Structure formats: C-alpha cells, structure tokens
C-alpha cells in the first residue's frame, strides 16, 4: 500500500507541467481553436516525440506500456492548459478500443501508428435516444456481399473530423443483435459528417451512416463489444476526471490570485470571511476530486464491478465539485468572470463539457448504486 509516485511518474508530471507552462500558452490555445480541426498538427507531433501518444499502448505494439495513473498525470496537466488536441479521442478511446477488441493483426496495423502520431482515431457510439445508456445502440450492421453494411446515426463523436478511422458501434442483425465495433473511413460513401466546435475546446461531430459499405475485416474482433466499451469508457472517465482536477485547480488558483489583489471597500476581497470560506470549500472540492480521480485511475484495470464503481463514483463526485468550483470562480471574479476578456469562462465551459460527457452526476450515482446491487 503506497500512493507515492514513482520516479518515472514524477518525471512525466514535471515534463507535462513544463510543457503546459512554457508552450501551451493562452495565445497558442486561441490559435489552435482557430485551426480547421480545432488543434495543432505541430503540437500533436510534439506529443508523439515526447512519447505521450505511446504512453498507454502496449510495448508489443510500439507503446510504452503505461497505465491509467500515468495517463491521469498527463490529463491533469492537459486540463491546466485546456489542451484541445484529441488525446482522449485517439489515445484513450480509439487506441483503447483497438487494444481491447481488435485482432492481433488490427493492433499491429493501427497501434504503432497511433503511437507515432500518424493515425488519429475517434469513437462514434452515443445516439440521441440512448442518453447515457452505453448498451442502447440502434445503428445496425448487416452482412452485405463480402463485407458489412452500416446504417444509423451517431452524435457527440469527439474529434471525428480529424480522425483517419472512426470506430462505429452497431448491432449485428445476424448475430442476435450482438454489439460490435467497425472501423470506418470518414470519407467512405454514405457517411455524412456534420462537425462543430465543441463546448470548452476541441471539436465534435454528428455522423449519419446510410448504406455504408466496409470490408469484412473492418470489424474489430468478433466478441460482444459491450464489456469492452464499458471498460474503455471507464478508463476514459478516469482520464477525464484527472483532466477535471487540473481545470478545477487552475480555477481555484486564479480565483485565489484575483481575490487577494482585487480591492473593494478598501480591502482585498479575500479578507472577507464569506469569500475566504468559499475559497476553502473550493480547495476542499479540488482535493477530494484529486483523491477520487486517483482512485478511479488506480482501479481502472480491476474487475468490471470495482472498476465501474470507482469510475462512476469519480465522475459523479467530481461533476458536483466541478460545478461548485466553476460557478464560484465566476462569481468571485464578478462581472469580469462572465466576459471573454478573462479565461475563467474558458475553464468554466470545459468543466461544463466534462459534466455532460458520458452522462452527468445523477446518471453515475445511479450506475454506482446499480453496480452496488441496489
């Protein structure tokens, strides 16, 4: 039993924090947001050179064999800088699904390219009617000639426009409606992609699949994909939780700085007990978020019940804490807090997106209760 980071983890944290502080400035973030894909190809290349894209990929496939705690260290720093590069979509979700569900040949083909930065992936799973229910998928896959035919509609595909391959979930009609995953090229015939700038940074898209033909080997593995989707989503929840910790901490730090300097009635805002105690409550929320995010990461490879309870617990609790910290950060900055002249709003929106992604706090408390047998 030990929660002390290893030397490697300390180095990773140092290099990620340095990169965010020195390179990923507000100016760069704003420039990236104006790029057609919502991020910078040059920065993505730097991520590859730093080994960050290879981090959680197994060594057999050109990766470094890191775990969810290592990914969390990176994500926390990404949160501090509001990084918009598609790390979650490509590395955590995309490469994660290939590693869980893919055949050895598929892993050999895709994972080394993710690790070297030449392959971007996205995951198209959510559907409008499903809300946050991972099991509810109406998109269908049917055998057609010597390949597959996909039909359906997906929403909230993170960074889908930039992806070289989109992993689409669908129910296989000929196999008892078993859930399966298919690699689809975004420019394939029948794919309509409607992209948009995403709340809080990055991009998203909605996807329509009408009579989309893929080759027979586009299917990732052949087993029921639901447990794999759940496992990878739980790891994404852990990664997002770590990112939220970085965002919350930054909002706290900025609010502390501001309330110490801003004077009204002849004294700093922070000298008022009502403000001081609110800042303390924000810092307690940050600290609890850090604890519970680390727990989700440390349990990311446990059995499905323990893993799911830890991931949903973190998402639910951090969702509540994030809302509190974000709202109070804006409140304490006064009218300036609701302008685009400060970046408080940018952090606020990223936390709002965090709360929304993969279901909100009440959904995850419900899932926690369900996994606890209630």
């Amino acid at each position, binding site marked *: 039993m030990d*929660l002390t980071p290893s030397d490697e983890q300390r180095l990773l944290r140092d290099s990620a924090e340095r990169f965010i502080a020195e390179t990923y400035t507000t100016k760069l973030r704003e420039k990236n947001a104006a790029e057609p894909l919502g991020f910078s190809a040059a920065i993505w290349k730097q991520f590859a050179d730093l080994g960050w894209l290879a981090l959680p990929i197994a060594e057999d496939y050109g990766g470094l064999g890191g775990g969810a705690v290592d990914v969390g260290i990176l994500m926390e720093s990404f949160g501090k800088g509001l990084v918009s590069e598609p790390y979650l979509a490509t590395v955590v979700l995309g490469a994660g699904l290939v590693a869980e569900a893919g055949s050895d040949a598929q892993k050999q083909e895709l994972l080394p390219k993710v690790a070297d930065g030449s392959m971007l992936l996205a995951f198209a799973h959510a559907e409008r009617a499903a809300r946050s229910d991972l099991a509810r998928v109406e998109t269908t896959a049917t055998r057609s000639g010597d390949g597959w035919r996909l039909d359906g509609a997906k929403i909230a595909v993170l960074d889908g426009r930039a992806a070289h391959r989109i992993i689409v979930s669908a129910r296989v009609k000929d196999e008892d409606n078993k859930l399966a995953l298919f690699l689809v090229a975004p420019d394939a015939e029948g794919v309509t992609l409607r992209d948009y700038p995403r709340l809080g940074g990055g991009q998203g898209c909605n996807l329509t699949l009408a009579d989309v033909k893929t080759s027979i080997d586009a299917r990732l593995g052949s087993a029921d994909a639901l447990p794999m989707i759940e496992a990878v989503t739980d790891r994404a929840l852990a990664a997002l939780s770590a990112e939220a910790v970085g965002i919350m901490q930054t909002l706290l730090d900025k609010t502390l700085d501001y309330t110490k300097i801003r004077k009204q009635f002849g004294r700093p805002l*922070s000298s008022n*007990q009502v403000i001081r*105690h609110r800042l*303390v409550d924000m810092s307690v929320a940050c600290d609890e978020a850090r*604890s519970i995010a680390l727990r989700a990461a440390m349990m990311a490879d446990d059995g499905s019940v323990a893993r799911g309870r830890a991931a949903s*617990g973190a998402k639910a609790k951090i969702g509540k804490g994030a809302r509190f910290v974000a709202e109070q950060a804006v409140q304490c900055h006064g009218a300036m807090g609701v302008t685009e002249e400060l970046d408080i709003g940018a952090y606020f929106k990223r936390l709002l997106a965090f709360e929304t992604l993969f279901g909100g706090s009440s959904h995850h*408390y*419900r899932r*926690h209760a369900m996994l606890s047998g209630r």
Partner: protein
Amino acid sequence: MDLTFSAEERAFERDVREFIAAHLPAETKRAQSLTPSVFSDPEVIVAWQKALNAKGWVAPGWPTQYGGPGWTPAQRWIFETQCALAGVPSISPMGTKMVGPVIIGFGTDAQKNYYLPRILAGDDVWCQGYSEPGSGSDLSSLKTRAVRDGDHYVVNGTKIWTTHAHHANRMFALVRTSEEPRQQEGISFILIDMKSPGVTIRPILTIGGDHEVNQVFFDDVRVPVSDRVGEEGKGWTYGKYLLEFERGGGIASARLREALKTVAAFADSDMTGHAIDDPDVSLRLSEVEVDIDALEMAELRVLSAMQTGQNPGAVSSMLKLRVSEIHQAITRLGVDVIGNDGLVVEPMRPLYTLNHEPVIPEALLPVVPKHLNGRAYTIFGGASEIQRDIIGKLVLGI
C-alpha cells in the same frame, strides 16, 4: 503507486484479525454498537484495553521506547481498518492521543515514568480541560486561573464540555498563570487530580439523551507544581502541539464505512420495510460511499507521505472538516431509513444496560440518538468555521 498490501502487510492483517477474534468480548461489541455517543464508557473499553496493553498495541502513535508498537503507517491503517470491521470500541483518545504525546514531548522523566504506563494500562481515565463558558472557538481567551502558592498552584475557575469528567480521575488543563499582553501567553498546561478537594462536576445532558459532557468547577483546588507539563506560560504551544498531533495521520474512513454499511443493512432489511427500494435512499448511499472513498484516498495519501518522511501538510487539515460532515450525512441517512421507528424515544442510558424488550428492534435504538449526538461533530475540536479559517490561513494564504 499501489493500493494492495505486501505479503508482510497481509500477514500483519491476519495477526490483527486473529487477535481481535480471540480478545474482543461479545458483550463489548454489543455495547459498542449500542453506544450513540462519541466515546465509549470506560467500563465498555476496560477488558479490550487490557488485552491490547498485554500485546503492546494500545498507543500506535507512540515511540517504541514509551511502549508504542513501532508500526509503519500502513500497519496503523490495517489495524484501524480491522478494528472498524470488527466493531471494536475506540480506546479513549484523551490519554493515548492527547495528553500522552504532550507528556512524551515536554514532560519530565518523573512525569513520563509515572503517567505513561498508567495511560497504557487504563489505570487513569483522563478528561480535557480546554473550553470554558466564555471561551469556545476563541480558546486562548480562557480565564481559569492558577496562582502559585509555594509548591502548588491554586486553581479557580470553570471548564465546560468536559467529556467523561464524571468518569475521569485526571484532567489535563490549560490555565492562566499570568496576565500578558497577548492572550496566548501566560497559559500553562497542568495535570489535575479530579479527586482533589474543591472540584465539583455538573452533568450536562445532550439532545441525544446522553450524559457525556459536564461542567467542572474549581474552587481553590491545589495542584502540585510538579504536575505542570513543560514551562510555565508556554501552555498554548503544548496545547496546539496536541491538536496538531491529533490531526496528523487520522484514520476515520474505515469506521465511517462500517457505519454506512450498518445503515445500508438496515435499509436492506424487513426492519425498515426495505427502505433501500426508495431510489433516493439508494442514491444517497452511493453519494456518501463515494465521499468516504475520497476521504480514504486522502488519508492514504497522508499516510504515504508520512511513510516517506514527508510532512502531510495541506491534506490533513481538511480531514476534520470532511470527517465530521460525512459522519453527519451517515447518521441523517440512518434517521431517514428507519422512518416512523425514529419517533420512538428510549430514555434508558447506557442503552446496552436495557433490561426490557424495546418497542423497536434493539439495533435501531441508537440511530436517532447518534444523529442528534452527531450534530456536535462540526462543533467540537474547533468548529467547522474555525477549521475553514485555519485551512484558509495555512493552505491558501488568505
């Protein structure tokens, strides 16, 4: 980073479990489960403390030269967890966790040789003389006076909220020995024999129906100067040291988890008409459980930092705040879970001495008293508002 235990730690866990199984009397366990107040009565603890003392396990935080077991932080965590799992009563912290460390840190050899073994054996029952009617959160404004008269101090004044003063034969107290410009100066830390002439005790009943706290009056009480710990006038420093000692390395999550499990078991039983089927109850159980998970990680982070010799710093100062709030959330959930049975008042105390068939199942009797008693958690030991001031100052620099 690793949440699992090493082979040695697992072996230690087995030892602790076996020790508890062999030495915890069934009636002690029952009495503890029927105790709504913060502290267990001395008569509940005595057999268990004797067994612990024979094993050298009474004071996990003490240096080995004074009888501490020399455990690593991980071992302390394992011990607390196993005690919580088994429903073991807590040894009164006033000897082992409060006055003990002050005597170890600042006492004379004579004081150490006399008092420390008696604390371990449970020969003395201690109470704490800090708060006064006019000095609650503003503790250093205290007015109880000790005037030097030859080899004695003559003490006059009053202390309040004195837990177990009616059981105690010893009190450690902060008293004013001189008037100084700063109210934190001129305070001394003395040890008072509760059987001395001039000590009177007035019981104070709390809303849960328990007699746990008291007001203590001192009327020309003579205390030997040799029972002052440390220097005269430096008592505030020792008092603060005690509070810091108490705060570092606290392990509360294990007991909170068991308390929540008890409430969940009530909710999942015929006793409550399966309150758990109410989606609100089910969700709140999850909400509190996740709060405990976060608290446990914070405690483990502190322990890991201590294990590598670091100062736990910021994290530990937040624990008291969260522990008290979570305790209150659990007891409140308990009240909601038992529904109409919460209307039944059983005035008998201690509950474990009840000699008639209660109106509701025995296990449900302490639920409402625990909740009522629990309202004190965010008040004693520095109210939550004081904790927020401390965190603001020490952690956030505001």
